[in-house]
Every structure is written in C-alpha cells, then in structure tokens.
C-alpha cells in the first residue's frame, strides 16, 4: 500500500487565498482583457503564458536545410530525443502550424532545436530555412510522439529517408554527444547497438550526413548511406543484404509514406517489429465538390458550386448564419480537415490535421473542394 501526498503549490492555504484574491482584482482591473494580455507585451516567454519560444539562431545545414535554435518559454516541459514539436509561425501574416522533430537531446542551456528541410512549395519549411530571423517569437506545443528509443538499450535499425533523419539525429546526438574532443561514448549509451540506413537523393543533398559519418567513424553507429544517384532507389526487399542481422533488430523508420508503406509490408511478411514516424499526412488535392462530414454525424455529398451553409440547411441541419454574403462572419465554423473553395474568388483554404489545425471558414461563401470535415 502506498500513500500519495498532494504536492504543495505556492505556500500556505492562507497565502494561496491571498494570491487568488490578487488575481481576481487584477482581472477586474483589466476586463475585458486578461492580465496575461498585458504581461504578454513585456514577457511573452514567462511562466504561466501560452507556450511560446524565441528563435535564437539559424544555422544552415545544406543549401536547403537549416537548424533553428529556439529558446522555449519557462513552461517548456522538456522532451525525449526522437519526439517532435508543433510550432506555429506567422508566414505572410498568417499563423501556420507544422510538426518538426527535435534534433538535439535535452541541452544543458535549455534551448531546443529543429532541423527543417525546405521542400518545394513548402510554405513553412521555406520560410524557416530562408526567411525567418533570430528574435522572432514562435508559438509552441509541448513535445509529443512515441518515436523514442527504449532507455534500456538494445539492437536497433533506423531507416531514414530525406528529412526523416531529423528525429533520429535527435536520438543519436543525445546518445553520442559530439564535442571538440570527438564523439563521446557515455556509459548510458553502451547498451545501444545502432545501424542507420539513410536514404537521400545524393550526398550533397543529405542533411546531417557529416554528423552521421562522424558517428560512424567514431564507431558509435554503423552507417549505410544509400544515394539515389549512386545506388539507385532503395528496394526494401534487399534490406537484409545491407543489414545481415536485420531479424535481431527492432526497426524505427521515418520518411515519406511510400517508403514507410513498403517497409510495413516487408516487416509484416517477415514478422519483424517496426515503429514509424511520418509528418506529412496524405493530402487530398482540392477538387470540385466532395463529401462533407460534420462532427454531429451528418454527411453530405456536395457539388463545387453550392455553399456549405445552404446545403447543410437544406439537409435540415441547424447552422449558424448571418448575412449569407460573406461579410458578417456569423457563419464561421472550424474546418478540421479538407479543402473548401471561396465562391467569390476561387481561393482555396485547406486544413491539415496536425499541421494547420482547424481553420475557421465562412460556410456561406465556401463550397466543398474535396472531402472535408467540419466541427459542428
């Protein structure tokens, strides 16, 4: 039997009551705003604020990739190498959310870093690599993700492709810190036997390849690098040729959907364990019309010309509405996933779960542009 004691927060009950009173007075003095709205003007990274961070420095890794070092707010709860972070940054004035792997193990200076590869058409990745400046305040969520190494150690195979190396580099840097004296071999890392199969279009286009090569040279890991231009595209059926003891290893993979699907099929056939991580969810190209599903359970088949509001109302749904001409914002609902088209000018709005988050859209002037899900 065990007894759990409630942790003491903020001193005696009496001083806590006084604190509550002070908070109430502060709220009464700042209404309709919150005291936090004023504190945010001066200390956006303070404890108790929404979690934010400030970009401290940006280091180019390759021509189109960079590591962004961020000082997180006081309430940052830390992370385990391999986990990822959701970051919200304003690009052309619009808040965009994306997930990136944390590429350092917990650092002594409390900073965190992400490494971003600018992908073609990638709004946020291009901004972070090429436009972002130190000093910018970004919005953060606490680290998340199950893609981590068991602390007990073991034999692992890491299959990474392109920027899929980022969560893995976080784990490796934590296990084998690189210093001026070379790669450190810490006692806690002795139990980890790691092979990395890294796939990239070419050697110069490979982020972190120098780190991987240094770890390989120091004997910390075994690196099998496969470049499309040298070795051809990796065929997962030949994985056992590259890693003879494949069957003894637990596989962790991070990369594009095609590779992960192929690995899943391969490992399934051979009865091997596989943990995967993928950031970019499959995107549906915006089309003309589509199935609109609502949180209430209603599903409607819509054409590309009917406003979602009109269609939902004809189907008997109770919808918020206003001017019905796109000016009053009385009809906005969160679009959780999918694309809608503004019937006035054809502009497409796309919500991707885990990236953009839900986007509030005006249902009176937007039609379905592909399958979408609306929270209502």
């Amino acid at each position: 039997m065990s007894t759990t004691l409630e942790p003491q927060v903020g001193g005696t009950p009496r001083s806590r009551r006084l604190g509550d009173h002070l908070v109430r007075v502060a709220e009464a003095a700042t209404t309709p705003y919150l005291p936090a709205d004023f504190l945010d003007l001066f200390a956006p990274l303070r404890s108790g604020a929404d979690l934010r961070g400030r970009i401290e420095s940006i280091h180019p890794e390759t021509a189109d990739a960079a590591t962004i070092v961020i000082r997180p707010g006081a309430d940052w709860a830390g992370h385990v190498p391999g986990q990822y972070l959701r970051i919200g940054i304003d690009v052309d004035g619009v808040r965009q959310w994306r997930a990136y792997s944390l590429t350092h193990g917990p650092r002594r200076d409390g900073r965190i870093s992400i490494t971003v590869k600018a992908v073609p058409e990638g709004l946020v990745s291009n901004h972070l690599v090429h436009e972002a400046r130190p000093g910018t305040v970004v919005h953060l969520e606490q680290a998340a993700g199950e893609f981590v190494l068991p602390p007990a150690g073991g034999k692992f195979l890491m299959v990474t492709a392109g920027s899929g190396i980022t969560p893995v580099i976080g784990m490796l840097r934590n296990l084998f810190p690189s210093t001026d004296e070379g790669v450190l071999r810490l006692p806690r890392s002795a139990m980890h036997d790691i092979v990395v199969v890294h796939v990239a279009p070419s050697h110069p286009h490979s982020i972190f390849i120098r780190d991987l090569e240094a770890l390989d040279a120091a004997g910390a890991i075994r690196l099998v690098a496969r470049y499309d231009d040298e070795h051809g595209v990796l065929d997962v059926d030949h994985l056992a040729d590259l890693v003879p003891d494949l069957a003894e290893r637990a596989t962790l993979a991070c990369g594009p959907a095609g590779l992960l699907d192929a690995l899943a099929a391969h490992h399934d056939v051979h009865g091997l364990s596989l943990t995967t991580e993928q950031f970019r969810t499959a995107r549906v190209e915006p089309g003309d019309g589509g199935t609109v599903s609502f949180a209430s359970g209603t599903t409607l088949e819509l054409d590309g010309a009917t406003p979602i509001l009109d269609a939902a109302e004809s189907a008997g749904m109770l919808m918020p509405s206003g001017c019905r001409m796109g000016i009053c914002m009385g009809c906005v609902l969160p679009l959780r996933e999918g694309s809608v088209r503004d019937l006035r000018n054809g502009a497409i709005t796309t919500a991707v779960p885990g990236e953009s988050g839900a986007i509030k859209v005006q249902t009176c002037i937007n039609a379905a542009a592909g399958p979408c899900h609306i929270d209502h």
Partner: protein
Amino acid sequence: MTTVQKKAVLGQANPIAHLTDADIEQLGHELDAIRQDVLDSRGASDAAYIRKVIDTQRKLELGSRAVLLFSAFPPAWVLGTLGLSVSKILDNMEIGHNILHGQWDWMRDPKIHSSTWEWDMASPAEQWKHSHNELHHTYTNVIGKDNDLGYGIMRVDEDQPWTPSSLAQPVFCFINAVFFEYGIAAYDLELGSVIAKKQTKDPDFRRRAKQVLNKIRKQATKDYVVHPALSIPTGSFLPTLAANFTANVVRNLWSNSVILCGHFPEGVETFEKRSIDGETKGEWYVRQMLGSANISGSKALHLMTGNLSHQIEHHLFPDLPSNRYAEIAPKVQALFEKYDLTYCARPMPQQVASAWHKVIRLSLPNGWMATTNKKNAPQQLAILYKMATGDRRTRRLLGRKLESESRALGKAA
C-alpha cells in the same frame, strides 16, 4: 431626405436613374477587382500593423491608468484622462470594430479573431456583431430594415410622420451621444421593440439581457470601483473615478460623431424595403456607395475614427483590413466619377454639423425650417405650437400647408 425610389416617383433627381443593369453589373466587377487586389497583397506588413496598434493601445492604457493613480495632482489627471480617452477610442474604433468585422481573421491568430475578441464597451461583442454586421451592413440605409438609421427611435426621413415628440429629438440625440455605449447595448438588445411587443419574458431576451448586464457590471466595476480604489493611497479615489467617467464620455461623444458622419449627413441616400428584393451584388454595391459618407482628413484622424472616415470603402468591403482603405479610396472614387455618382466626403466638422442639422430639421415638421426666416419667426413658432398641441387633423392640415409653401419657395429659387 427621401428614398431613392420615391425621388424617382416625385420627379426629383434620382442619382442612379442613368445607370443601366449592365452598368451596375460592370461596376460590381470593377469593385470585386479592387477587393481582390487587396486580398492578393495582404500579408506580413498588415499583420504587423494591427499588432502594433494593439500593442500601442495596451501600453497607452497601462500608462494612463498608472498616471491616474496620482490623479489628485491636476496635471496627472489631465494627462491620464487624455491618454485613457485616446486608448478607449483606439480600443473601440480601429481595434474592436474592425476585428469584430473579421478584418483580421485571415491571420488565424486565435487572440485577434472575430470569434474571440471582446472590447471595452457596454455591448457584448457577440450581440453587437449580430446587429451591426448582419443587420446594418446587409441592409444599409433601407428604411425599416436598418435600425442604425436613427436606432429605431428617431425620425430620420421626411417620409416618416412628424409627431410632437419629434421635437425632443435633438435633446434625445445628445443624451444618446453622451451615453452612447449604453445606447448601443440597448439597441443591440432591441430593447425598444422588445418592450413595445411586451416580449421581456422571452427566455432568449432574458439570456441576452443578462449578458449585457454582466458586461456593464464588469466595465463599471473596473472604471468606477477597482481603479479608483487602487488610487486611494494617494487620495485620488474621486479624481480617478471622475477621470474614468470623463474618458468614457469622451469616447462616447467621439464614436457617436464618427458614426453620425457615416450615414447621416445630407447627401446620403436611403432606400425602400421593396427595393432590395432580389437585389444583385452590383445593386448592393451601389446602395453601399450612395448610403455612406466619408470624412476627409489626416492620418491621425483616420486612425482615431477606426478608418470609418473611409466609411464608403468600409461599407463596400467590410472584411478588408482597415489599414488598406486609404490606399483603395482613390480607386473607389475614380469609379464614382466614371459612373457619375456622388462621392460624399467632407472634413469632420462639416459632416458633424450636417448630420446635426438634419437631426434638428427632422425634429421639426417638413418644410418648417425652409419656410422660416427672421421676419416670420413669431408666426412660424405659433404654427409649430399649434401643430405640437393640436389634434392629428390640425397637424395634417398645417403640415401640408408648410410643405406646399416650402415647395413654392424651392421653385422660386
């Protein structure tokens, strides 16, 4: 003022008679193109603008309230009251009004979004959005539909019958200006019509009334209890209370004036209910163009009016960021000229005077002001007295006489 539709019947100059359906459609396309230009170039500098204004307003409020902690010292009272007045005006006009219009929703910043914003004002944002965005902006200047025309209590058009109570209109209008925020709250609540229809027990009305009372209580606690109490150590309880009251009244008078300037000056057109049945987008645009008036002036004036000095541009494109109205104004004005329409823009003192002139003119029977001069003033006052005290028949007869005299005067001129 007579509705555009009646003007046509009465043979008065109808400002849109020369426009064909094709013209109006083409005009609509040209306005759409102006809107699209702004949407295409909307970006980081616009976002930086609204954040800067919010940041400035909050620091100004903090600073002014800090100075007012010492308001027993007269210079501190003056400085603090001035700062707080400006801060409240910025909060209501350039920040609150425009955010609640959804002008900044595109930034996807949950803290600066029409669905989450609240403002320093008696009317809760949610209720104001309904009466303002849905009703006023959709039915702009349509008699009987747009309650902003006289807030449902004033005589705003010659076609509305004159009654003796109309005489009190200027006084009433002034009291409304002083306590404007409460007037707006009552108006958003549709208090007048709810009482008239005896619907005060309606649960939905009860819920909304409670919301308003809650908001008023919080606002009043802040301005009239908490901050004065915080000033007690310097013996400034009453001076701070007076300062906050003054700042609220200054804000009320200012916003009331700006709003009067938007739709009330002479030269602004009104429309009949029937005329908007099956209205096209182009026709809607034309109604907004003729139903609004601008205030010309400096950048500081535009900021302090929340860019409602560009009321015409705002009514055409209520969801465009306010900092862009100045830039599109010349393009909009060029369209007015191209389609031979009158772009109503004057400096603020003139627009305010024009609006008040109209309030006073309409508080009197039709034609009374036009037919009155220094010489006949005693007789005219006697007529007014008879109309105010007489029965409906007397009023009708004397009213007709005044109208025909004023028409005769008009023809002679």
